[in-house]
């Protein structure tokens, strides 16, 4: 098994849930790759917080996910598509008596998320719309009218589900004309119960289509379906949660509007204006959870790391929640015990896809690792990952990661890949990424390349001003940031300026396209799912509203869109370019790739367009991910060796 096959067999952990008493930890494992025509599988694992051998809690042949402890810690509700792959229902696993899970729901469209009421008597469910029955007489679709809305439901949990019988009582809570759950392919937006159990907080939008998510209505909804609006938020994942006093709701949203994302805010549950927490903090906040004392535990990204931090809504300083780790890394998920003292979390680092840890809040004792999901990684060679900082054209200090080739020798220069992340509000972090095909750095490091992973302005991790640094000119200053980063790698004596290649996915594909139309310093490029023409993009992609926030409304400001479109400059391009797309990508439609491909061909630039069937914006099938990685490596190797 070579490194690509090994990486595509990796196990990743996406969700972690500590029991209310803090003694046990549930987590969800899955594969980094799916098989053709098979929905992703997932397995629930259980391990004692004190350590010991983890055990599988579900049989795991289907997709088991979203486990949630009942407040008394004796039962686990979760989602599984075991009876109809690709469409999950809610199940209840009783840990008091043992035995297998009992199905609680039978929703045609499936269940997307669930949360226990504080008293454990009910579950709130996010239920997907049922697809229309195929019709024989009419098989046309009407754009925008066949999109089903997800809804909130309430289910009364039976005390003894194992006795069998009919499904428990459940009814729809949210109004028929509103969609709950945000952009479903990002993982559904969550919702929260009021501590009293008599209301929920959620976000409503007009439909699940991406462009309809900005902005979203923040609402509370009582158990009779009464809705109270708390204003609007701009976010991809609001995660609204009631505070322990029931009077305040916290959300993760933009400070105002995109791109000033990833701030924590509180809103009075009875209505009123939002308050920004830790204003001006030079980082980005992601998942959060209220602590019993009224503070907030959150994942905080600063630079190329993510850690657990405590945020004081009363305005105290942001502080570390647990003892720091020796190695740089990245917390990607966590959950807190009922008393707020123990936290279980997932942390990845430069040689880890993420393991489950447990730690006590405020303690100096290092966190305890509870899983060893990919022991094979200890046998793999990994290039050293260094922090790199440099100064851009306008004096802005920038950061990124420089992955050195395996067996790096100081003083020797190496071919350099500039790999550009997407978003543009993403960031490179100290982690092995979940989709190997989106992070080529270690595969290339093993093949003699240095890889620069820069976080130019517009990236997360350095506050809202940094995120907003490309509003109105996305592609221009960040391109300069990237080029100055390459210069820094050359100046450092690591990169060979004659052997530079470039690539990226999504927003990184856009900046790759911008790069090949603005410089000839790269010998080869790989552009994945990137934007070539903002004007046509805004008429064909599903996320038009997001880029309104960067370039203005396209029919009011077509010139700005055109001026930032790589295709406008394609006659300057000379770099051999491999173009990759998922054939079913609605976020960046493959028509963008066809435009670039035609444009380069017309100019006699070597190019190849590869389309992956059944794939959307992320390429997930095992064979596709392997093919993609082999093509990327071969494209770079071929064009560098040809010199």
């Amino acid at each position: 098994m070579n490194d690509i096959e090994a990486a595509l067999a990796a196990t990743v952990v996406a969700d972690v849930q500590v029991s209310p008493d803090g003694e046990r930890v549930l987590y969800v494992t899955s594969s980094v790759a799916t098989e053709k025509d098979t929905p992703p599988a997932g397995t629930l694992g259980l391990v004692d917080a004190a350590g010991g051998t983890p055990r599988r809690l579900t049989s795991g042949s289907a997709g088991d996910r979203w486990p949630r402890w009942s407040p008394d810690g004796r039962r686990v509700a979760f989602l599984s598509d075991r009876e109809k792959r690709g469409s999950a229902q809610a199940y209840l696993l009783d840990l008091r008596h043992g035995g297998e899970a009992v199905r609680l729901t039978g929703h045609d469209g499936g269940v997307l998320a669930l949360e226990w009421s504080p008293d454990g008597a009910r579950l709130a469910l996010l239920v997907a719309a049922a697809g229309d029955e195929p019709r024989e007489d009419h098989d046309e679709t009407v754009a925008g009218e066949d999109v089903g809305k997800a809804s909130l439901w309430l289910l009364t949990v039976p005390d003894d589900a194992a006795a069998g019988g009919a499904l428990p009582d459940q009814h729809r809570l949210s109004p028929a004309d509103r969609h709950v759950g945000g952009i479903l392919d990002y993982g559904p937006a969550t919702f929260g119960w009021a501590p009293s159990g008599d209301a929920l907080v959620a976000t409503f939008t007009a439909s699940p289509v991406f462009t309809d998510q900005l902005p979203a209505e923040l609402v509370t909804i009582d158990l009779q379906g009464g809705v109270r609006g708390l204003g609007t938020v701009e976010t991809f994942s609001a995660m609204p949660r009631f505070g322990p006093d029931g009077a305040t709701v916290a959300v993760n949203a933009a400070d105002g509007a995109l791109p000033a994302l990833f701030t924590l805010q509180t809103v009075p549950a009875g209505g009123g204006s939002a308050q920004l927490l830790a204003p001006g903090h030079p980082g980005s906040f992601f998942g959060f959870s209220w602590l019993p004392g009224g503070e907030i535990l959150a994942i905080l990204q600063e630079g190329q790391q993510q850690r657990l931090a405590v945020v004081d809504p009363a305005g105290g300083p942001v502080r570390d929640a647990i003892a720091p780790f020796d190695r740089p890394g990245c917390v990607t998920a966590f959950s807190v015990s009922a008393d707020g003292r123990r936290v279980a979390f997932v942390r990845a680092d430069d040689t880890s896809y993420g393991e489950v840890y447990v730690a006590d809040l405020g303690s100096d004792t290092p966190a305890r690792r509870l899983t060893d999901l990919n022991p094979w990684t200890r046998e793999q060679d990994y290039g050293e990952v260094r922090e790199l900082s440099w100064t851009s054209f306008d004096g802005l200090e920038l950061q990124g990661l420089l992955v050195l080739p395996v067996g790096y020798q100081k003083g020797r220069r190496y071919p350099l890949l500039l790999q550009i992340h997407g978003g543009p509000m993403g960031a490179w972090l100290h982690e092995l990424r979940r989709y190997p095909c989106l992070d080529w750095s270690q595969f290339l490091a093993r093949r003699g390349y240095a890889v620069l992973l820069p976080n130019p302005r517009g990236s997360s991790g350095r506050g809202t001003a940094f995120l907003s640094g490309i509003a109105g000119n996305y592609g221009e200053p960040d391109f300069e940031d990237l080029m100055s980063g390459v210069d820094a790698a050359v100046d450092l004596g690591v990169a060979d300026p004659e052997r530079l290649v470039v690539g990226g996915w999504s927003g990184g594909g856009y900046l790759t396209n911008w790069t090949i139309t603005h410089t000839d310093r790269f010998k080869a490029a790989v552009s994945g799912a990137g934007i070539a023409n903002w004007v046509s993009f805004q008429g064909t992609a599903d996320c038009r509203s997001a880029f309104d926030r960067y370039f203005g409304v396209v029919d009011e400001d077509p010139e700005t869109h055109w001026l930032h479109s790589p295709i406008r400059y394609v006659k300057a391009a000379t770099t051999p370019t491999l173009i990759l797309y998922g054939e079913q990508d609605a976020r960046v439609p493959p028509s963008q790739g066809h435009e670039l491909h035609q444009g380069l061909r017309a100019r006699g630039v070597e190019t190849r367009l590869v389309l992956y069937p059944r794939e959307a914006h992320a390429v997930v099938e095992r064979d596709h991910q392997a093919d993609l990685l082999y093509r990327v490596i071969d494209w770079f190797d071929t064009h560098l060796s040809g010199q």
Partner: protein
Amino acid sequence: MDRDIRDSDAYRGVEDFYRRWLEPGFGRVTGVADPSLRPDGRAVAVTGTILEKLEGLGSTRIAVADGDGLRVLTGGPGNDRCPRWSPDGSTLAFLSDRADEGVFGLYLLRDGLGEAIAAPRVDGTVEYCAWSPDGERILLGVAGLGADLAGGQGSGTNSGRSDDGPGWLPAVEGGEESAWRSAWVYDVAAGTVRRVSPDGLNVWEAAWLGPDRVVAVASEGDPGEGAWYTAALVAVDVTSGGAEAVYKPQSQLGWPAGSPGGRRIAVVEALSSDRWIVAGDLRLVDPASGVVVAADTGGVDVTGLQWLDDRRLGYVGVRGLDTVAGVYDVSTGTCAELLATDASSGARYPDAAFAPDGTAALLLERYDRPPAVTLVAPGGATTELVALTDPGARWLASVAGTAAPVSWTAPDGLRIEGVLCRPAGDGPFPLVVLVHGGPVSAYRNRWRMGHDYTPLLVSRGFAVLHPNPRGSSGRGQEFAGAVYGDMGGADTHDILSGIDDLVARGIADPARLGVTGGSYGGFMSCWLVTQDRRFAAAVPVAPVTDWYSQHLTSNIGHFDALFLDDDPYAAGGRYHGRSPVMHARAVRTPTLLVAGARDRCTPPTQAAEFHTALRDHGVETELVVYPEEGHGVRRLPARIDVATRMLGWFERHLSVQSGGTA
């Protein structure tokens, strides 16, 4: 009658009967089988049947009764069955087809926490499983896909999948691809499976013989269903795969059980008409010397065995109409009976499970009482853990009349027993004789007598006689063997004399007699109307009607050669003389024939032959063939359909007013 009768009042009436019986239990366990007693003697795991609609067979789940009700432990999808506790009681092994419909694999529920984990797949479907005495391994009985099912399993093959190639591909018999049965072993610590029985040995049934060997009822060189009748007892070394025949029986073998230390084999030897339907004499075999000892079980035909330790052997069986469970001590050669009851446990034959302290678990049931998971302590005290009494079962019991043992004397002086179910009142009643299959099998006092027909007919005013003529089990090998070479002989008169007795007692109306039954009971239904013109109507189900063609088209042709004790290629003889079709000119009884198109045991052509023979002779007859059924009609709503047709046939020809008490 029409092909589609679903809109008729008659069908609606019978459907209403099923609805009132079954609907209140939808989603709950309403049937239990296959008990496994946790070694501490406190919890019983069973295969529970759950119906959720009047369609199909329902699904089966593993459930546990432990004094705290009956908890369903498994969640599916598919079917879960064959629960087996590990020797330390911590793990429950079972079989499930959740990953691939119709193909069963081994699953383990560990420590009562979380869901079952699958063992690796084997080459075929697992039919049964058993823990090794040390708890380190699990024996798996594996049937290759396409293997024939026993008649008692519904016949047909174990995999009817059509996705194994284009539809035009031929079916091939006698080729190389015949599906064999083999023994496999799952290693618990390593989580691996491997086949342990050698090529060329077809393993019908196997059990542990100490921790390193298994004992099997097996046939050399032939995987066909007919080879079972001459199968021998074979010891197989799990490590080397070496197989050694240890006992060649006179008749058929079943329920092999090796002692935990591996020094003794217990097995039942019995004249048997169907695989998995074995009731007879207990034999103890010394695998080292080959010495075979007959054990005296006090007149009990043994139908199940389980070693408690190297000295004590738990057994269960049938004696007359009674179910008996006990412990046999091999050092003293004596039996201690725990329980002897006129109630029943298990489906075809009594079934029980034992704990090392001698506690037994049975699923006790009676005609008017659905199964109850019951513990019998070593001293004989019984504790009912849970009873499957739901409102639907109570309703059924309320309309199903009563059951009582009856006996009478055959023309040759032999005493014959049976169970009579009858409505309230004095009679005389229209009488339907329901003849059991086999011929080696037996009626006991079972919940609804194991049939839909009995409570339905009683609810509509019929009395139903369930005779155990000679050839039945429960009365020793001589009684069972009396049908050997004489099917359709003296057993015919055992049944007719039972009718005479009921007529004489004023219970049965001689002008309103009907007969039905499945398999051998289907043969007997045809045969009786060729021998006696008193029957006003007959409904043979899955019958044999022509022993020549039966021999040449059934997958168990060996059975008729054995039980007729004659040569199918000889002119005349019993193949001719005992075939109902050869006597069709004597018949006057209107006859409704029922068959399943997938039946390989008594192929549907058997019913078709009698139908044609009766038409040739101007007798009123109909033939109903269910395309998705095998040996017997088991699936809903076909069950409702056949019950409607049968009831209608009897009501019409026995002049019973429809609309009865249901």
